[in-house]
């Protein structure tokens, strides 16, 4: 019982960090060809003419195609989440045929004997466009006179949700705070770019892809291309990060299969970073109006939210569902009488948006935690005190929120207590007061974020009620080999998280075998036939539980055999440290001995199938709800606008911890990503719809050098909704940190009359905001 909870080094790492691994781009198959895509340089245009003929005459070129050449067979890229009755799901050809709707959309391709020749030959393709007006601003896009992205108009869907009497909550409310926040567009920047290889032997196909979702991909590709599901094998080799960007069915994956089929040879495509910035689905991009009604003492009456969510040009796999994942989170950890949520999805001529670490929940948490600070200022309370007055107290769990979710467990008091102690809250407040007093050009701000999130996606029935196209279960099989070693097959396909290590720890404890004796397989539909893959902080809370349940079944089978061999009744056996013993006598059999006995099958209970393995599929009853308190201290130089995070404390409650090292890694990476949104990153399109942030010199990702030493700690309130007591940690850091940072910046500047700084809070923006409130010329 010691593996779960221990800081095991990851089994994956030796291979990964010494380069002895296989990324999709490393895969070489005999006769392989390389694909390069010609992409639209225009945000919106009609394709008048394409001639790929000249490209076909270039050296090394085997074939060149335009969208027209695949018009009959390429189908439409799938959207699996038709969120509402009124949702408009436009046709989305993998290669554009008649019209392009964002810069970077594929219009033609060259297939050549190496990737250099393929890239060179693109220039020979002749293409003529007739430019159409770009549609960039969401509010403008919804006006009657706006040019249309699609014939059906620019409104993708409307979606409403509410509970309680919102009008009553706002009527005569002593305090109302009404704010609009901009969730800028972000570009998920996985370390490994997208890459895909497709091969066929005639009627069977193998697709290798740097994907988070081999199982979902297989189903969707079968439906899209017509390749029968049982003739299609999808393999996700080692995958270097995704953050949601590889939770997708991409044009390049569909086309790889079609090209392999058309040419009868394996094909490979790997994106470049700048190609990726344009064409990997983007994240966030919402305009959030949030109003809170409260009593004078700060107690919340109700919250109203109205979102415009930029879909980009098409609805991809779960595009329209992303803002709605936030719909149940705008109330956070707080109690109130009424809640009202509305969201309009809007088409624009930009890269489609979709899941990005946190997916809907960071957006919700940001608006809520920002507005809580505004309310605190309005009613004259310390932001932590305001939160205390409103949060669900630990003795009130399980608690059904105004958004109709039942939070099973939590202890906001404990996490906050711990965080304020580690942070030195009172001391920093004193320093802040002193700097204000002295009119120090460098002001100190303190930002608070007491977040929760829903993860462990998801109870299948809930997904069904939200019109999502699939369930939220996860599958695992566990098999004992004759020599007593264990093979685990998981349906949750990792892309950097460390599943192999964590699953080994769970199995080691459950079966009483050494950690080293467990091997975990994943990411290949021929090896792992069933799965729902990795996203939404679900792997441990759903997939890990499935592993545990499969172990329990294996153990029960082993118990039968042990009882038979020991001539005892199964109930008289106790299992500890890998052995079944007859209570009282001490006679026993190790699980390894039992494995061998099962393999030999010489002497088994009547009717016992000689196999010590089991499958389990876990469909959670409820989401899990990690929470925590994050505190951030920032120095803001009011002369230059430069800000510097001085200290950052994150106390998270992710339930039971299987591996503290992995949890720590997830928290650190998550913080980096959330801070990146607050301070650094933004995808910028110009007035013509050209993406300006195509390189890392323009899309500023922070590195370790730009981030403070994080102080992290945990409280541990086990989830009651699953037998491991785990909640998930993949997104927590990202969700919590963005508002903590921006709250700190606004807090630093509040005495100057600043109430908001739009993200990312760049030095220039801070400087202009200050110049604006000073009334001076910028």
């Amino acid at each position: 019982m010691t593996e779960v909870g221990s800081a095991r080094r990851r089994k994956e790492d030796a291979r990964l960090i010494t380069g002895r691994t296989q990324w999709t781009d490393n895969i070489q198959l005999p006769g392989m060809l390389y694909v390069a895509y010609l992409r639209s340089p225009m945000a919106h245009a009609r394709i008048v003419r394409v001639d790929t003929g000249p490209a076909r005459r270039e050296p090394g070129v085997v074939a060149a195609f335009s969208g027209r050449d695949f018009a009959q067979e390429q189908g439409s890229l799938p959207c699996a989440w038709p969120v509402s009755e009124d949702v408009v799901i436009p046709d989305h050809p993998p290669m554009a045929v008649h019209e392009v709707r964002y810069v970077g959309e594929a219009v033609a391709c060259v297939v050549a004997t190496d990737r250099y020749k393929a890239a060179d030959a693109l220039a020979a393709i002749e293409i003529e466009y007739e430019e159409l007006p770009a549609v960039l601003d969401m509010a403008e896009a919804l006006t009657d006179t706006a040019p249309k992205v699609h014939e059906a108009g620019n409104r993708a869907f409307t979606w409403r949700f509410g509970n309680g009497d919102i009008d009553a909550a706002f009527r005569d409310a002593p305090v109302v705070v009404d704010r609009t926040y901009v969730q800028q567009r972000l570009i998920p920047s996985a370390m490994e770019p997208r890459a895909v290889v497709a091969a066929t032997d005639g009627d069977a196909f193998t697709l290798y892809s740097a994907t988070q979702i081999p199982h979902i991909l297989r189903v969707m590709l079968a439906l899209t291309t017509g390749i029968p599901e049982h003739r299609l094998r999808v393999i996700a080799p080692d995958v270097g990060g995704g953050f949601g960007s590889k939770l997708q069915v991409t044009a390049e994956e569909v086309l790889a299969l079609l090209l392999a089929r058309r040419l009868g040879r394996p094909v490979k495509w790997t994106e470049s970073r700048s190609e990726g910035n344009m064409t990997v689905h983007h994240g966030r991009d919402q305009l959030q109006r949030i109003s809170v009604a409260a009593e004078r003492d700060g107690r919340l009456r109700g919250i109203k939210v109205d979102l415009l969510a930029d879909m980009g040009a098409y609805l991809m796999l779960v595009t329209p569902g992303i803002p709605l994942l936030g719909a149940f989170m705008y109330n956070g950890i707080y109690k109130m009488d009424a809640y009202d949520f509305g969201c309009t999805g809007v088409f624009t001529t930009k890269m489609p948006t979709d899941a990005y670490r946190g997916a809907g929940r960071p957006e919700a948490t940001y608006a809520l935690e920002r507005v809580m600070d505004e309310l605190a200022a309005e009613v004259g309370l310390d932001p932590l005190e305001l939160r205390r007055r409103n949060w669900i107290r630990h003795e009130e769990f399980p608690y059904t929120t105004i958004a109709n979710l039942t939070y099973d467990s939590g202890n906001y008091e404990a996490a906050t207590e711990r965080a304020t102690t580690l942070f030195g809250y009172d001391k920093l407040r004193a320093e802040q007061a002193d700097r204000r007093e002295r009119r120090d050009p460098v002001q100190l701000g303190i930002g608070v974020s007491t977040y929760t999130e829903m993860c462990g996606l998801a109870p299948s029935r809930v997904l069904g009620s939200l019109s999502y196209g699939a369930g939220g279960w996860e599958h695992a099989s566990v098999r004992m080999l004759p020599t007593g070693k264990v093979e685990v097959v998981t349906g949750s396909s990792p892309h950097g998280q460390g599943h192999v290590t964590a699953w080994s720890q769970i199995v080691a404890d459950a079966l009483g075998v050494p950690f080293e004796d467990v091997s975990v397989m994943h990411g290949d539909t021929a090896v792992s036939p069933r799965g729902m893959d990795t996203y939404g902080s679900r792997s441990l809370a759903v997939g890990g539980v499935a592993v545990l349940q499969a172990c329990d079944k294996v153990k029960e089978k082993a118990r039968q055999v042990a009882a038979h061999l020991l001539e005892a009744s199964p109930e008289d056996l106790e299992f500890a440290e890998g052995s079944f013993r007859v209570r009282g006598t001490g006679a026993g059999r190790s699980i390894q001995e039992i494995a061998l006995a099962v393999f030999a099958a010489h002497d088994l209970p009547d009717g016992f199938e000689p196999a010590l393995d089991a499958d389990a599929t876990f469909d959670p009853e409820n989401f899990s709800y990690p929470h925590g308190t994050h505190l951030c201290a920032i120095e803001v130089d009011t002369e230059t606008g430069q800000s510097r995070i001085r200290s950052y404390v994150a106390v998270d409650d992710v339930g039971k911890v299987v591996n503290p090292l992995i949890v720590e890694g997830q928290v650190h990476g998550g913080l980096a990503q959330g801070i990146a949104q607050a301070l650094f990153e933004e995808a910028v399109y110009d007035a013509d719809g050209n993406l300006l942030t195509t390189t890392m010199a323009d899309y500023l990702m922070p590195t370790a050098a730009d981030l403070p030493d994080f102080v992290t700690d945990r409280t541990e309130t086990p989830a009651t909704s699953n037998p491991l007591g785990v909640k998930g940690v993949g997104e927590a850091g990202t969700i919590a940190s963005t508002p903590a940072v921006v709250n700190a910046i606004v807090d630093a500047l509040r005495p100057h009359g600043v109430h908001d700084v739009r993200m990312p809070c760049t030095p220039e923006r801070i400087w202009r905001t200050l110049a604006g409130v000073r009334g001076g010329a910028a």
Partner: protein
Amino acid sequence: MIPAAFDYVRPESLAEACEALADAGEDAKVLAGGQSLLPLLRLRLSFPSTLVDVGRLTELHDIRDGGDHVFIGAGATHYDVVRSPLVNAACPLVALAAATVADPAVRHRGTFGGALAHADPAGDLPAVAVALDCVFTARSANGEREIPAAEFFVDYLEPALAPDEILTGIRVPKLGPGWGYHYEKFHRTAQSWAIVGVAAAVRRSNGVVEEARIGLTNMGPTPLRARGVEDALRGAGIHPAAPDDGGADPIRDACGEAAAGSSPPSDLHAQPDYRRHLARALTHRAVRAAARA
């Protein structure tokens, strides 16, 4: 991204390199550390016919004492420069600025000469070269010539080098005793280029600035020398007056003209008015830091 096709030669001597460059014609390019050129090739913003790789020319790597100056070979890497005892002792401003270039990986590959020959006004070294009145030496098959820093930076990414010329090194004058130095770089992430940078060398005595040299990074298509500020600083008292005495601050006042005559770019990181503001604020900081040294 994938660069377009090009020819590649890697000469073993400077003489050979000059020949190769002359033979390859107008569209050939010198390749040093590749930290600026390769990104341009990969983004297909540059299409040289031939690359002449000077990376193997050990004769370009020297950093040596020239008496009244330090000679830094064009092929010395940023890392070589940053840790050179000679540079740190005799012309520390160069080391201070080079230490802010990019990240350790880039500093180990990128060269001092490459950073200057690239003539990027956002680079950290050009402003230093201008502030210190460095002298550039260039070699072609026709011989060697010297180019003063004030004439070297012709325009954005355009050095005063003929297509067949190789930058061999830079003479950095020793300013002598009594000088203090500072390079103030303002950027958003540790790895990114300066939004604005200020290189300052200040000689002080008896509480006043006697002489100052100031170069500006990224305030126009070429690095700039803030001569107006240099003039205004001459004789300026270093310590501001107490608030009770009116709070006069001659250094701050002198730096108020730092952006005069500049034409800063507009890009995703900053608009010109903000850059002008930064030039003033950072020049003040740089001068103060240098004067304290």
